[in-house]
Every structure is written in structure tokens, then in C-alpha cells.
């Protein structure tokens, strides 16, 4: 089981500013445990963010992305109250989807 993504998004003049943190170990397959055995690679391979039906951000990851990946991006055409849906798939075929509501402009 993985924890929900933390997604924060606010909109100013129609442009949404999205910051997200994705709980995931992002094991590179290079590390060893304390007995010297290699910890198998286990990382997110694909992440997508949709605004309604529209894909607004797509990412393919290798094992060099940090644990609990952080992302920040911006897209046009958003309004306060709109929903974002983020989904990832990892190298074991596990997946997770989470939603967020876009907030109004920060003070």
C-alpha cells in the first residue's frame, strides 16, 4: 500500500500552479541492504495528470528520480474549483490515483 499523493494547486489569471509529492520508495536497484543483498529496483515509470479529460502533464521516470518524487508545473485554462486527477504506474505494475481541487489565487 502506498500513501496518497499530496497535490496542491492554485490558479491565478487562468494559470494553475501545481506542486505535488508522490509517496514512493523509488528504489534504484543499486542499493544494498545491511546483509549486502541488492534491494530490487522498484520505481514509478509513468505519471499523468489530467484536468477533466485533458492530459496536462505526463512524466516517464527512470530510477534516478528521488524517493517520494516532487514535481512542480503550470498549465493554462484552469479555474478555481476544477478537479485534477493524478495517476502513476510503477515497475511492478502497481498503480495509484488521487484527486485534488484547484484553489483560488493565494493571498
Amino acid at each position, binding site marked *: 500500500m502506498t500513501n496518497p499523493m499530496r497535490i496542491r494547486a492554485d490558479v491565478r489569471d487562468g494559470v494553475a500552479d501545481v506542486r505535488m509529492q508522490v509517496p514512493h520508495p523509488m528504489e534504484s536497484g543499486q542499493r544494498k541492504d545491511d546483509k549486502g543483498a541488492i534491494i530490487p529496483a522498484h520505481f514509478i515509470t509513468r505519471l499523468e495528470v489530467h484536468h477533466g479529460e485533458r492530459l496536462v502533464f505526463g512524466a516517464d521516470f527512470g530510477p534516478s528520480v*528521488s524517493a517520494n518524487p*516532487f514535481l*512542480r508545473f503550470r498549465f493554462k485554462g484552469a479555474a478555481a474549483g476544477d478537479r485534477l486527477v493524478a495517476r502513476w504506474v510503477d515497475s511492478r505494475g502497481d498503480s495509484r490515483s488521487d484527486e485534488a481541487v484547484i484553489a483560488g489565487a493565494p493571498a
Partner: protein
Amino acid sequence: MDQKRRQLLHAVGGLGVLGLLATAGLISPAQAQAAAARPGFDARELNAALAALGAQEASASAELSLAAPDIAEVANAVSVEVKSRLPGTDRIAILVEKNPFPLAAVFSIPEGTQPEVITRLKMAQSADVVALVRANGRFHIARKAVIVTISGCG
């Protein structure tokens, strides 16, 4: 050669070496397909990754900026920001030259999304971080040396 076999060979042919491995039963066709759909991620050297992305001819551009720290004290989370001012930017890739698999991430930038991204990467050792941008079908590249004091991949 019967029709079925011909179709199989045709399907496998498009996958190159991975297809051959799949035919030989060394990896499953699904694995071959998955790897083929992610060009560059299996490359072990920067130039091989750039070639797999079709970016051997990438040129430097003042319209592409790459921000990363001069010295990374926390090498398992090095903040990297890539920003393109090139019209028609639809893809941004970030690579770390001396990591075991240099290609870290490929971002697709649909119409309406700003051609900029911030993320955090692991660095095995001091190396160049490389930003690659595709704009109107042409590749542009920027590099920034980052000194690592404690490895983030060990």
C-alpha cells in the same frame, strides 16, 4: 512459413534486440514492449541515452535554462529546474551524466502547459546534469556541473 509465424516475426521485428530476446524466451513480449516504449531509459551512458531519444544533433540554446545547485549536499534529492522559451516545446528530458542509468525523466508538455518543470534527482557522484528539450521537432541541450559531496545512490 505459415501466416501466424510471419505475423509474429513482423510484430517482433519492430522491437529489435528486445524482440529477439522475447522470441528467445529470455524476456516476455510484454517486457520487450514496455522497454521499447521507453527509449533511452535502459541506456547506461549519456550519449547512448541521447541517441535513443534521437537527440545526437542537439544544439545549445540561450532560450533553454537549467538551474541546479553548484554543490549538492543532499545528493539523493538534488533540485533541478528546466525552463524553455523555445516555441513548440513539447518534451523536456533530464539526464544525470554519471548515474548508472543517466536518463532520469522525460516530461511531455501538452499544448497549454508551460514548458518548464521542477523536480528532484539522485546523483551517484559529481557530474553534469543535462536538460534536453524538443521544440518543433528539434532538440536543444543545456548542461550544468554539480559537485556531489556524499553520494545519493549508495
